[in-house]
């Protein structure tokens, strides 16, 4: 416990230093993936806010939907898990659905679970919540390492698909937290109401407070599917053992409870958020492309 608290306090000091001088970084050449990711998350979130407003108020249907199915012009995306579920439960294949699933699948198999860390609205809400807590408590929010074995994720995916097929009803499609965020925003913009199932989003955020990204780590079947697709991905976090001083900061920074210093950045569970790269003081971590 004591061992952990010292780097934790140091980290807090460093983070404050960075936030006091936005834009300029400590060593000059270093870039912040955290900030870049926050911008991407905000852009992705503004898309699902803009979609209902543009559609409903101005009848511009150029962008539509949220992260269950999004269309930008004639470019259509369908979330792979939702698509897979409807294929399994309706026992039929609809061409345009497969085409919509294609790009997300390719993205996940090249880059891994980047949807989760760079796009998903739940990620944004969790990060904002963290930032609020940091402001209130005046120190960086952390919640314990790995309360459960990570392999639970795979069982959740298999269990969810089996349950959907047994019940004959796709489950994730109406209870997916990223989807619910979009649906609630749309209901609010278009009809001025909220749906009851939005509680799921709040539950997910409460879980996040109890244990960091608990839902994403253990319970999200979509994340599991994307992780499975990205098991042999090209983009990986790699550690330079020559540089690494085993300070353990990356392990503390990792929202998934991985230890990048022990090459866990290459595991299926890593979602390439880059938080460990930001936390490394000696630049021992980097993104690498391709198999080694």
């Amino acid at each position, binding site marked *: 416990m004591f061992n952990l608290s010292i780097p934790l306090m140091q980290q807090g000091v460093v983070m404050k230093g960075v936030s006091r001088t936005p834009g300029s970084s400590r060593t000059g050449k270093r870039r912040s993936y955290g900030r870049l990711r926050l911008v991407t998350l905000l852009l992705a979130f503004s898309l699902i806010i803009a979609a209902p407003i543009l559609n409903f108020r101005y009848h511009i249907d150029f962008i539509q939907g949220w992260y269950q199915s999004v269309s930008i012009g004639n470019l259509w995306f369908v979330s792979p898990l939702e698509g897979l579920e*409807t294929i399994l439960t309706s026992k039929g294949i609809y061409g345009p659905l497969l085409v919509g699933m294609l790009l997300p699948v390719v993205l996940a198999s090249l880059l891994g679970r980047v949807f989760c860390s760079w796009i998903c609205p739940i990620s944004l809400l969790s990060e904002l919540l963290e930032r609020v807590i940091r402001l209130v408590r005046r120190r960086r929010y952390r919640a314990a390492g790995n309360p459960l074995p990570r392999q639970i994720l795979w069982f959740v995916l298999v269990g969810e698909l089996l349950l959907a097929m047994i019940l004959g009803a796709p489950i994730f499609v109406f209870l997916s937290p990223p*989807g619910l965020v979009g*649906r609630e925003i749309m209901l609010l913009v278009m009809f001025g109401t909220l749906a009851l199932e939005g509680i799921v989003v709040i539950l997910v955020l409460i879980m996040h407070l109890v244990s960091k990204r608990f839902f994403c780590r253990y319970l999200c079947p979509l994340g599991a599917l994307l992780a499975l697709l990205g098991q042999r991905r090209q983009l990986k976090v790699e550690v330079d053992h020559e540089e690494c001083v085993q300070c353990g900061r990356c392990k503390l920074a990792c929202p998934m409870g991985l230890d990048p210093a022990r090459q866990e950045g290459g595991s299926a569970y890593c979602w390439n958020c880059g938080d460990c790269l930001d936390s490394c003081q000696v630049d021992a971590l980097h993104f690498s492309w391709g198999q080694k």
Partner: protein
Amino acid sequence: MAVDRKRRRFFKAVALLGLSGRLWSVGHEAEARPLFPSPVRTNRLRPPGAVPEELFPLRCVRCGRCVEVCPYGSIRPLDIRNGVFAGTPVIDVTKVPCWLCMKCVEVCPTGSLQKVSQQDVRMGMAIIDKHSCFTWKEEGLLCHTCYNVCPFKETAIKLQAMKPVVVEDKCTGCGLCVHACPVTRDDGEKAINVQPVYSFDAAGSGHEGR
């Protein structure tokens, strides 16, 4: 003692429930009862081009794009009180009917709403309640509201002896007539109502949207 009585009452209630279930099912032996009964009913319909109701909740990914694209706000997603149907789109024609702009059909990524032309839409069928319709019930009153608002006037609804009559195989079930009907019955329905006859296999056959 109190606990025991409570328990006995509980068992009695369970037994009664079970019995009532059995009694109720006697008349319905022939039709298979689905695990999750559909929320589609009179005046609460699926958007145009919808596949049959037993397939619809399985196919729909609840992405809400049909809801978003609907320029009239006719389509609304159901919420979790409808169980597994949460997030699926319905049109409550008594609130906002459908003007058959066919935009929702264009955007559906799953084929739950299939491409149909306006006149081939079969969201349901309008049925006139002759016991509450002014024109049918009383002599001398000539309300032709349903006839006047119908987008397929003289095709889907006609006047016979100055009384409106729905042409069953031409009615699209858009619900404009329901929305416009001035008569509201005690049970909240109108004097003309759209029944989702094509959504269920037992009643609706020959609908091409499969």
